[in-house]
């Protein structure tokens, strides 16, 4: 196919133009891949954060009731489900923590350490102390690192938790770092201690459930709702707003990506028009030698399309480098849900973006190629 030969030679004969065309598409590819990767990374972080730091299913008290009294029975019923890995009755609430002159608002979680650890892998996030110690030391607490810092609380210091007119004195027996905003407010207590602080007797405020398959959560929550009169909510339901918001945002993002590609498409078309106007005479000669209009069109579309794969590859490489660089930047947990932003670059995304880049190259090449094929050979040969 001589069209291929000519197109190839034209490309190789114009390294500078080729470079700029390739760069324009490569940049578009890179920007889009990084943006898509950031969104995907955010979503994954959000899900893993949600899934790691909160129960897959939360069972709340019956309607008109503030607490669950029969939590032991409830736990047994829930555990009968084959997909349920762990159940932890929890008493959660708000209190003030006071140490010397420092006062901070906290969210306390009272639970049985063995069950709570099965639910949220609490011990994996401990940076000092053992969560299991709370089984035996009734007046001890595990404190979030940032909270400890704000209170200027040291290891083994005693501090006070105050709720309305009740207060308990506890010892900092461990520090926990989840890498999320929780670290600023979290205090783990033994269940009994939390119950003392609350003063409502032997009750819990919820039962947390961990599943073997996180995506089975809505179905199991529905089952639990049918079986009991407690209100079971899957993690998907609990974070529905933010997941929906992400999906909406995705639609805008796609429009944005499309615009980026259109802009780079104009860049390619512009370069192609320049190449063709410089080669008008040559096109005339090729026509005189018997090249059909179809062949001329093919040559210039090929020239445009040939640049697609190297652009995509270069763009992919740039995106990879950018993703690595972004991954090393530390971000405060108030800003982002994790300490590092994650850019998820998967081959599937790359394949789609590459396909799109090829499409952009093709579409951008069509008009200039059509103009080239429609040149009048006599005028083309005579042109300067």
């Amino acid at each position, binding site marked *: 196919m*001589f069209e291929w030969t*000519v197109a190839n*030679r034209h490309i190789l004969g114009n390294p500078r133009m080729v470079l700029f065309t390739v760069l324009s598409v490569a940049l578009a590819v890179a920007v889009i891949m990084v943006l898509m990767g950031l969104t995907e990374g955010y979503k994954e972080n959000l899900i893993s954060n949600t899934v790691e730091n909160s129960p897959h299913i939360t069972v709340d008290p019956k309607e008109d009731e503030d607490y669950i009294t029969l939590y032991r029975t409830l736990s047994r019923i829930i555990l009968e489900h084959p997909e349920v890995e762990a159940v932890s009755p929890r008493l959660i609430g708000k209190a003030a923590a006071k140490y010397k002159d420092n006062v901070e608002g906290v969210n306390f979680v009272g639970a049985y350490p063995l069950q709570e650890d099965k639910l949220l892998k609490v011990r994996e996030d401990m940076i000092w102390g053992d969560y299991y110690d709370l089984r035996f030391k009734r007046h001890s607490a595990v404190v979030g690192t940032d909270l400890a810092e704000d209170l200027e609380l040291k290891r083994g210091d005693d501090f006070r938790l105050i709720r309305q007119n009740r207060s308990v004195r506890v010892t900092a027996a461990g520090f926990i770092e989840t890498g999320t905003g929780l670290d600023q407010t979290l205090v783990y207590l033994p269940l009994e201690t939390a119950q003392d602080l609350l003063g409502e007797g032997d009750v819990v405020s919820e039962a947390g459930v961990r599943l073997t398959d996180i995506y089975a959560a809505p179905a199991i929550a529905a089952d639990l709702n049918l079986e009991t009169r407690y209100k079971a909510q899957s993690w998907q339901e609990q974070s529905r707003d933010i997941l929906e918001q992400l999906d909406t945002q995705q639609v805008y993002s796609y429009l944005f990506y499309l615009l980026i590609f259109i802009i780079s498409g104009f860049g390619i078309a512009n370069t192609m028009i320049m190449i063709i106007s410089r080669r008008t005479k040559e096109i005339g000669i090729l026509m005189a*030698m*018997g*090249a*059909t209009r179809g062949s001329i069109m093919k040559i210039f579309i090929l020239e445009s399309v040939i640049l697609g794969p190297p652009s995509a590859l270069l763009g992919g490489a740039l995106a990879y480098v950018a993703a690595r660089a972004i991954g090393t930047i530390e971000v405060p947990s108030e800003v982002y849900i994790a300490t590092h932003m994650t850019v998820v670059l998967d081959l599937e995304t790359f394949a789609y973006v590459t396909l799109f880049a090829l499409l952009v190259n093709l579409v951008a090449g069509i008009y200039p190629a059509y103009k080239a094929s429609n040149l009048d050979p006599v005028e083309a*040969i005579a042109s300067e």
Partner: protein
Amino acid sequence: MSNIIEIKKLRKVYGDGLEVMALDGVDLIIEVGEFLAIVGPSGSGKSTLLNMIGILDTPTSGEIWLKGKNITKINPKERARLRNRELGFVFQYHHLLPEFSAVENVMMPLLIAGVDKKEARERSITFLEDVGLGDRLGNKPTQLSGGQNQRVAVARALANHPSIVIGDELTGNLDSKSSDMVYDLLRELNREMNQTFILVTHDMDMAEKTDRILRLVDGKIVSEMLRDGDGFVTHDLCEL
């Protein structure tokens, strides 16, 4: 001898506002194997006529018959095919493709015709050897002199064994030595292969080396000179 080209009442009008009559009722018969020159002042329509014969341009009215076939109203694809198979062009400037070597330039019409690459290369090498450039196969146009490039262009025009070779001022840009060399080459091919050569020139010395000289003025063939031994016999064909 049979007629390779028959032109009947050919007219070409350019422009849509101010119209210019480039060809004004040209009748012409060219036989197979003729070696013919078209002369005339610039603007006389000789290039237009050549472009019509070369199927690069279409007439406003009239007919052109190539090898007994009316080519005036054929589709663009067929026109391209005929240009490729029946015609070879040599222009004033060599018009070689700058990114391609001499042999690749000669190969181009063959590749367009769909000839296998290896065979095209072999045939092109033979042609380049014939024009005395066997040792310049891999040189690009920038690495060759004007005369050498023009010889590559001649080889390219001949590569597909066209029945008609068309030259538009093909030696206009060459010194007399190169010009003679190109002329001798064409003449030899004309004798050996019985190919038809039609040259447009305003170089009378060049024209007088052909067998038949047509003189165009204002889009009309005004006279015809036929070789008679070393001289020419002139026939007036129309009133000026």
